[in-house]
């Protein structure tokens, strides 16, 4: 896609079109490529944690197995479901935006936001249990009577991974909130909804990462 060709309508009618782009398509595609590149960096950021987790698990298989028993599978599964559904609602939000159905966009964004809130709520419950039992990362690990040593290592990674992921969820909520505001102002249309599109991509990635975290942390058998 190059600068060639002229825009259908004068720029005046395309307030969102930045000066250095010739066409809305060009701008939209550029932003999309940018977003995917950003998602890749996110994957590799978490990748470091995956690598560390994998190696430590190779070195302390037994301890990891013992330790993961302290996690609440039910809550983990619940959160997985919550996040999957939120992913669906987000996809619907984008879908409606593309169709220019502004009211449904708002509706689905609201749903997604609530589900994200639920997710963090559940995490809060889980965390508070761990804190109470002294299942804390690193040198703060205070749990007594472990069968095998080195279980703190599991919780180091549990908190690092879910923590970083949680931060991403929170950030996502901020973005969705901002989208809601713009959607309510009716700034999006079938011709311009890139922000919704990009936020959607981000949200699905956050979901995808959890899809891996869940079995890695909760389902070691």
């Amino acid at each position, binding site marked *: 896609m190059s600068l060639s060709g002229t825009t259908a309508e004068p720029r005046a009618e395309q307030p969102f079109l930045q000066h250095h782009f010739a066409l809305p398509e060009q701008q939209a595609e550029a932003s999309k490529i940018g977003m995917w590149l950003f998602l*890749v960096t996110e994957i590799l950021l978490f990748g470091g944690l995956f690598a560390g987790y994998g190696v430590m698990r190779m070195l302390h298989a037994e301890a990891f197995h013992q330790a993961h028993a302290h996690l609440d599978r039910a809550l983990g*599964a619940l959160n997985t479901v919550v996040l999957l559904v939120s992913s669906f609602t987000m996809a619907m939000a984008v879908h409606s935006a593309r169709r220019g159905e502004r009211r449904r966009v708002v509706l689905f964004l609201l749903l997604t936001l609530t589900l994200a809130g639920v997710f963090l709520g559940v995490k809060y419950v889980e965390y508070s249990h761990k804190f109470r039992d002294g299942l804390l990362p690193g040198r703060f690990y205070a749990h007594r009577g472990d069968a095998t040593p080195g279980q703190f290592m599991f919780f180091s990674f549990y908190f690092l991974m879910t923590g970083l992921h949680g931060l991403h969820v929170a950030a996502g909520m901020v973005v969705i909130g901002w989208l809601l505001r713009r959607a309510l102002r009716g700034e999006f249309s079938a011709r311009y909804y890139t922000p919704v599109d990009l936020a959607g991509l981000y949200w699905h990635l956050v979901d995808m990462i959890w899809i891996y975290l869940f079995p890695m942390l909760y389902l*070691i058998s």
Partner: protein
Amino acid sequence: MSATPQAESGTRTYLCVLAVLLALTAVTVLAAGVNFGAPSVNVVIALAIASLKGSLVALYFMHLRHERPMNAVIFLTGLAMLAIFLMFCFLDTASREPVAPSAAPAPQAAGGARPTSARILRAS
């Protein structure tokens, strides 16, 4: 516009995908309970299912199925790099030579007896 999927995937598609995702979640949880002999089998199964779910999200929710291929290329390159990173980290950890003073046993004396990769390489 060309950024949007050529073949619109509609509400129904999204609903189906969601259903499958939820089903697969149930499957992993159940599978985790079953004992397939070696624990490694469970790990493989769990990760396989996760990858299946992941690709569904990527293909439909993230439109990669209908997008222009460029974005998919970017995504896959990222995954490839991640794979390389994990692969070498694990390979090194798995193939370290257990060394020990003949008195005390090595920290991970597990494979003390088996011919170490160095010996194999040397033999070849």
